[in-house]
């Protein structure tokens, strides 16, 4: 088989697009310079194949980058449906539409404690010394892969959360990334920095204003959790089914710190998330939860890496996937243990429930262990709804359909039980019911 010449305009952006993008931006030279540097990396990565280990099952053949462009036009701020906004009291909230920040709020109490929360660009400029050393340098680097580099050159709006040493933010914070117009390419960035002994919860969601327009999100999430700090981060991906979602996400967890990270995949035409959990400090812990419900022709892919870099670290990943119609889900999980990371405990598990003969799921766990005193376990299951469960429920007067829905919700319950934020559990349960087609909902 001969390799066809790579059509840059199909898989990414050329120099012309970049220069035009830069020309429309008003920002300090150091930021433009960082973009230029990233763009050069991007250009060279565009010439090479994507890592087959990560991408061979992710079908990007019909992806056409030329269909999407970043926008400098002021975003429409008409009503955008969200699942999480107004569901509870937030300590702060921010919204980005079509790559531009349209709303940002932080309670004066938190601001007085030194918490920074708001538009990434504005805050990067105001607090350069504090933030520049972390932005695209510690958790995700532009040379990580083609999409990370693309993002680093073109990042548009973003959410920044910075919590100073010892500050515990009780109320969750809310971040919304939305698309309102057809053909938008949006490069939202999320940077969370928790200094030592700090605590916070950030709930982030994505949304399309309607179901018809096509969109592209090339995103990046960086979570930097300091010593003894605790971060809970939820990203609920709920684009319409014409949106491409390509994201590089990483969390660094320092000594005795804990990261609880929940990834929800409900929307998108195709989504691929590269998720790195770096346990960089002694006794760091991470709990990773995944809730995915794919339907129609959706393709949802995850590449997760639990990287144990220090002694006594603990990671626990549980992904649950439900597939219906002709959807496809791919999960490739890896636990890596460095030689220095003795006495670590790593766990990963992915369970898929197939509701259709035509859906397809690939779950591939993996271990790479260089230390000799560790405990690492993994597992993956793929199964159909058990007919005996359906019959049992039916014999109690529950219809076949209702029984199936209960079984699906029960399947997800195991991962809901691990999510400590009640409104997230409730929202997920409601959203899953919606996707199952249960219209009128009885309060339970």
């Amino acid at each position, binding site marked *: 088989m001969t390799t066809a010449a790579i059509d840059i305009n199909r898989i990414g952006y050329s120099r012309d697009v970049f220069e035009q993008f830069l020309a429309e931006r008003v920002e300090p030279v150091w930021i433009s310079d960082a973009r230029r540097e990233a763009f050069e990396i991007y250009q060279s990565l565009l010439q090479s194949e994507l890592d087959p280990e990560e991408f061979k099952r992710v079908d990007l053949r019909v992806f056409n980058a030329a269909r999407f462009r970043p926008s400098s036009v002021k975003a429409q701020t008409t009503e955008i449906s969200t699942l999480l906004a107004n569901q509870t009291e937030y300590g702060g909230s921010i919204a980005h539409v079509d790559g531009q920040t349209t709303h940002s709020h932080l309670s004066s109490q938190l601001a007085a404690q030194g918490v920074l929360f708001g538009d990434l660009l504005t805050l990067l400029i105001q607090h350069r010394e504090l933030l520049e050393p972390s932005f695209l340098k510690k958790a995700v680097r532009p040379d990580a892969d083609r999409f990370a580099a693309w993002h680093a050159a073109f990042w548009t709006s973003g959410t920044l959360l910075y919590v100073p040493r010892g500050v515990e933010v009780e109320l969750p914070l809310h971040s919304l990334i939305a698309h309102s117009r057809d053909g938008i390419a949006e490069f939202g960035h999320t940077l969370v920095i928790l200094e030592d002994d700090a605590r916070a919860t950030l709930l982030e969601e994505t949304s399309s204003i309607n179901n018809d327009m096509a969109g592209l999100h090339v995103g990046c999430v960086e979570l930097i959790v300091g010593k003894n700090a605790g971060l809970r981060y939820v990203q609920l991906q709920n684009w319409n089914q014409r949106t491409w979602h390509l994201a590089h996400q990483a969390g660094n967890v320092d000594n005795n710190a804990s990261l609880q990270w929940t990834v929800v995949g409900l929307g998108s035409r195709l989504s691929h998330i590269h998720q790195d959990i770096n346990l960089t400090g002694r006794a760091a812990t991470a709990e990773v939860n995944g809730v995915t419900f794919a339907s129609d022709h959706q393709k949802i892919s995850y590449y997760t890496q639990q990287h144990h870099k220090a002694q006594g670290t603990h990671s626990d990943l549980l992904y649950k996937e439900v597939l219906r119609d002709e959807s496809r889900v791919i999960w490739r999980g890896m636990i890596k243990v460095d030689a220095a990371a003795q006495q670590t405990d790593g766990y990963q598990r992915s369970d898929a429930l197939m509701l259709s003969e035509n859906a397809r799921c690939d779950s591939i766990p993996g271990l790479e262990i260089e230390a000799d005193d560790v405990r690492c376990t993994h597992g993956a299951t793929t199964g159909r709804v058990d007919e005996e469960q359906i019959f049992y429920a039916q014999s109690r007067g529950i219809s076949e359909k209702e029984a199936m829905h209960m079984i699906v919700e029960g399947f997800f319950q195991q991962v809901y039980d691990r999510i400590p934020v009640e409104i997230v559990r409730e929202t997920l349960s409601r959203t899953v019911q919606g996707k199952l087609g249960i219209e009128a909902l009885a309060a*339970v």
Partner: protein
Amino acid sequence: MSSLLKITDLHVSVGETPILKGVNMEIRQGEVHALMGPNGSGKSTLAYALAGHPNYFVTSGSIDIDGVEITELGADERARLGMFLAFQYPVVIPGVKVADFIRHAVSNIRNPDRKEGEGLVPMREFRREIRERMEALNMDTEFARRYLNDGFSGGEKKRMEILQMAMLQPRFAILDETDSGLDSDAVRVVSEGLARLSGPQMGVLIITHHERLLEFNRPQFTHVMLGGRIVETGDASLAHELHANGYATVRERHPEAAADNAQTVAAVTT
């Protein structure tokens, strides 16, 4: 007027294998019937066929309640008409809480026209009711919050079946070896529970190898199944006799059915 469950010349196959070969039985509300028979005689097949398991094909004959044919109905529709099966092997449904499951079931049984998403029985009344029923069965009310049968012991599962029966108040209850695999304390709890629940409003068919359940729930009728047929029907003394002497004499009296039975056992075990 009390209802009548009537089974007429029922033939049932599992896959290609015929198991029931012409069963006749009439159970009236308020009556207790015992169904006994050796392995492979078709007792559980009858239970599943009555409940409407999709893998048990009725090839001929009929099942009706008060003249209304239910042979073609789905298991949920039968349940809504008042049929209940206490499973020999209750099914685990992970992530579905006992209380939620039973509340949905009760809502459907009490409002047979209910569609998914429509109102459930009010929470307060439901809570009070399930708590009372659980206490009567010596069950820790914590069980309501657990996932259905998930991690339950054999005895806990069987009690859960009786709890569901108590909540659903069926017109006809079939208990498929509810006493099997239980220690004598558990058998006593389940037997007493059943005895409290059965009354003029419930017809009961107790399938058992043993006699213990019948000590608390004395049957008016005892049926003996062999080779997919009811070969003898008597009163409680027949159950007692079978318990004491086994099925050897029954086999001798019905050699043809005994041969069929042996064949079925062979087909199932190979």
